[in-house]
């Protein structure tokens, strides 16, 4: 006690002089505790809702361990299978590439129209934004299922699904980016007597181009990931094989397919990092929504 007093001085006096600060700190701590308790209660309630049982959980974990054991060593079986998988992988990449690029090409003018500072029309802004929201609200799997009905099984349906759902995301992102552009370059171009389209070309586009490119690359990465599972509904790509091999419990094939996906995604990440640095310079810009 004595030593603590000599180190810290009179604790009671300190408490008295900083009473207000301590009170706010305590209040904040209590609030934090309350929030944590509510979240924890929700967690327990939720676990109860989904019939979480430890017995079931541990039995399942045991089975999962067995499955993981049976995945070793990952192998495609034979060369024929490997070629099939390889083709499906390339198909997946093509689906993601075309889907992203086409969506970007279509969303660019739409995003411009939806940006308040470009067209200056609140009605257009509102309508287009709601359209984007609705498109984004429908999952790409649903789009894939619908397009499978329209154009038949195969990668074309997957490409259309990715393109459509990306139009929604890109439209929103692009228009937000345009709205966030600095108005000063626009004023500068306008002051030279330029046409509105000139301000677009020489003031807005140069400013937002790196951001747009970054967003497109980011979506290409994440679309590659989601294109790997579109095959589950018959929309082309490696997902079909993944689904089939899991169903027939060929775990070594499953593990090989997952490894192929991991390597591809890592490669795409590296590639887009290179492109980003080449065009944009070292400026991290990521979209936290993905």
């Amino acid at each position, binding site marked *: 006690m004595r030593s603590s007093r000599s180190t810290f001085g009179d604790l009671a006096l300190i408490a008295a002089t900083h009473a207000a600060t301590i009170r706010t700190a305590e209040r904040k701590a209590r609030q934090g505790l309350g929030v944590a308790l509510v*979240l924890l209660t*929700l*967690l327990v309630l*939720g*676990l109860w*809702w*989904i*019939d*979480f049982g430890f017995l*079931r*959980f541990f039995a*399942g*974990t045991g*089975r*999962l361990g067995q*499955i993981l054991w049976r995945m070793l060593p990952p192998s495609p079986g034979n060369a024929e299978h490997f070629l099939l998988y390889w083709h499906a992988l390339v*198909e997946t*990449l*093509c*689906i993601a*590439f*075309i889907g992203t*690029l086409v969506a970007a090409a279509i969303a660019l003018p739409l995003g411009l129209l939806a940006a308040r500072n470009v067209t200056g029309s609140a009605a257009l802004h509102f309508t287009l934004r709601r359209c984007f*929201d*609705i498109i984004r*609200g*429908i*999952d790409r*799997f*649903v789009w894939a*299922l*619908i397009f499978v*009905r*329209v*154009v038949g099984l*195969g*990668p*074309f349906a*997957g*490409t*259309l699904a990715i393109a459509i759902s990306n139009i929604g995301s890109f439209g929103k992102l692009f228009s937000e980016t345009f709205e966030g552009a600095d108005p000063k370059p626009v004023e500068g171009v306008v002051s030279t007597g330029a046409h509105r389209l000139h301000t677009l070309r020489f003031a807005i586009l140069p400013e937002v181009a790196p951001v747009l490119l970054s967003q497109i690359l980011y979506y290409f990465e994440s679309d590659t*990931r*989601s294109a*790997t*599972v579109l095959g*589950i*509904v018959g929309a*082309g790509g490696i997902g079909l094989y*993944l*689904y089939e091999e*899991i169903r027939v419990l060929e775990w070594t094939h*499953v593990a090989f397919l*997952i490894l192929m*996906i*991991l390597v591809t*995604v*890592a490669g795409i990440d590296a590639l887009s990092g290179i492109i980003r640095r080449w065009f944009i310079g070292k400026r991290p810009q990521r979209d*936290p*929504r*993905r």
Partner: protein
Amino acid sequence: MASLQILLPAAQLAPLDAAYARAKSAKRLVSFMIAAGLVIAVLSAGHVAEIDLTKLWGRRAELSDYIDRAFTLDSGGRVFADPVEWFWNLKGWLLLLLETIVMSYLGTALGFVLGLPLCFCTSSNLTRNPWIRATAKRCLEFLRTVPDLVFALIFVEAFGLGPLAGVLALALHSTGALGKLFSEFVENVDMKPVEGVLASGGGKLAAIRFGVLPQVLAGFSSYTLLRFEINVREAAVLGYVGAGGIGEKLIEAIRKFYYTDVSAILILLIATVFLIDMGTDRLRASLSRSLSR
């Protein structure tokens, strides 16, 4: 009006002009090469992906037909005329939607709980041991890269059909996603408070609790809320592989051609996602206000 222009003598100007033209044409050449490369890439990728625009154009009636049927009741009337018939299974669907939301909450919460310790392990300013750091980083990368649907497919085999498989799949994927974002935050914290806590005799946990956590909590909560939003969308899909939630009913309706059910479930789903987006947006705004005060 005599314009006052100060020009260099032509002899001096000519090489500068030439240099400008050269620089410009070099830039044009690069742009042209990129465009050409892009066109070639698009054409070959389009070939592999079996892009067939004439087919799409030919079948366009099918798409409008689908939409038309989705809003037409069996009796022949439009769905809007008889919403009770349209939403005949409203109670069951709402229950499944609630299950979807519960699943995404559980997945996000478990992902947060698992991702939190991992993010401190991957941050170079808190973990000195490079082996631990690399291992934790690879783990997060793996969890992030494998789509949650693949996890769900495997978990359905291990844990049986039902929401538990879906929750675990969401939890693992969220762990990867959140852990990575969190560690970016942690790597950028101001280290002075941490040093302060350590200097006053605090341990490593105390340093994280009183030095790091207050700085990153706002960012963590914001990203966790965003993840929750994403997980609601993802959870709606997990039903396709039997991992619980509304997706099961949706895919059943699509597969069995219950057209009006498809539109009804989709509308409910879009409304739910929209409401949750709005709610979390609000929450994030008030969060950043209260924590910045």
